[in-house]
């Protein structure tokens, strides 16, 4: 049976992709950000996951306002990097794991999660930046990816509780997949940031770290944080952190923290990164 072995939380700021693509990861501005990912890069080399379930949001790339799925799962064979207005990032295509993805999609639907199924789409920085952070610049990505896209743009976005419960259901789905493969789940986006209006530039180191503490704990209190708290405390785009709850929900009651990193700023955003292992 498939094994869900770890969860990773990470910001997915587009500028990080630019830093990788332009070889600036060691400079004064980006150096401290990337230093906090070095541990994870080595760890991933040793862990060699077969598949990553990558929870992210599309930023007006594959989806426009015509169709807004709350939870959508990529069941395709492969995905191309999206053209976000400057031409696509020169990173490898993302290989899907259609068998596992379809298994999860079917299991989730039977488990009362009415998923949208995607067979074809391009994937934007929300998905490719975390791959670059964890794997650098390989010829081909060393993992297959099951993209899980969450609407965190048009309100109401899904509740924290629903995201956590989706994570729990994903864990059950992975556990019933008959192949013996090593699966990780990544929650991406955040941490505090606001990209709009006169309040733009809001960051909240204290709240972000309290959120990381909550993810490390045995309590599931984080699932009950209301949207308004993310919005008030972490900026309008800080709401992306609900996607980390899907990752955390999938790991079970107890987790062990393997690594944690926090840095301010990257462009408009607070960078957060955490690696957790189920410890039930």
């Amino acid at each position: 049976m498939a094994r869900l072995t770890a969860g990773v939380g990470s910001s997915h700021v587009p500028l990080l992709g630019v830093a990788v693509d332009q070889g600036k990861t060691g400079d004064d501005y980006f150096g401290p950000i990337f230093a906090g990912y070095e541990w994870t890069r080595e760890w991933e080399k040793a862990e060699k996951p077969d598949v990553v379930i990558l929870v992210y949001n599309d930023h007006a790339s594959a989806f426009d306002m015509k169709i807004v799925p709350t939870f959508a799962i990529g069941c395709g064979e492969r995905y191309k990097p999206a053209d976000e207005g400057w031409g696509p990032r020169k990173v490898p295509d993302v290989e899907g794991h259609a068998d596992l993805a379809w298994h999860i999609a079917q299991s989730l639907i039977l488990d009362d999660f009415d998923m949208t199924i995607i067979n074809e789409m391009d994937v934007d920085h929300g998905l490719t930046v975390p791959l670059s952070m964890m794997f650098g610049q390989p010829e081909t990505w060393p993992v297959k990816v099951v993209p899980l896209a969450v609407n965190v743009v048009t309100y109401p976005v899904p509740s924290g509780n629903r995201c956590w419960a989706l994570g729990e259901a994903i864990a059950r789905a992975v556990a019933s997949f008959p192949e013996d493969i090593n699966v990780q789940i990544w929650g991406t986006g955040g941490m505090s940031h606001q990209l709009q209006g006169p309040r733009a530039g809001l960051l909240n180191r204290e709240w972000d770290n309290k959120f990381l503490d909550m993810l490390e704990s045995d309590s599931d209190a984080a699932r009950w944080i209301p949207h308004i708290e993310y919005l008030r405390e972490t900026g309008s785009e800080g709401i992306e952190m609900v996607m980390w709850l899907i990752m955390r929900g999938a790991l079970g009651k107890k987790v062990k923290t393997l690594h944690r990193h926090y840095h301010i700023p990257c462009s408009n955003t607070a960078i957060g990164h955490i690696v957790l292992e189920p410890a039930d």
Partner: protein
Amino acid sequence: MSEAAKPAADIHAYLAELEDIPGTRVYTAARARKGYHINQFAMSLMKGENRERFKADERAYLDEWPISEEAKAALLKRDYNTLLDLGGNVYFLSKLFSTDGLSFAEAVSTMTDMTFPEYRDMMLKGGRSPEGNRSIKGGY
């Protein structure tokens, strides 16, 4: 507790709270409806040929869209705060920033009362504090 026993969320209270954040336009269903064509126009700039046509004659390109005069004027002026009021969303409007060759941070700074260098400096110093910026009514 069974699913059926869960009390329904109070949607009116939920939506009212979203309007209580200083200097912020949460992209609610109401804004998404109002700004639909603004955002779809912005999305059209993802295609190179559309960017070229827009750059060649912005007004003519905008006239192809069912967008209000007020929104067209705001788009021509790159008045992003007005566009947020009219239902624009920043992820869609960012297609217009990139057509203009502006970085995300620079475009975002135009919505604040700061110049770009001032904004960048604020970010380097830890960003805008949430203190006093959380609630209009509460003033905290």
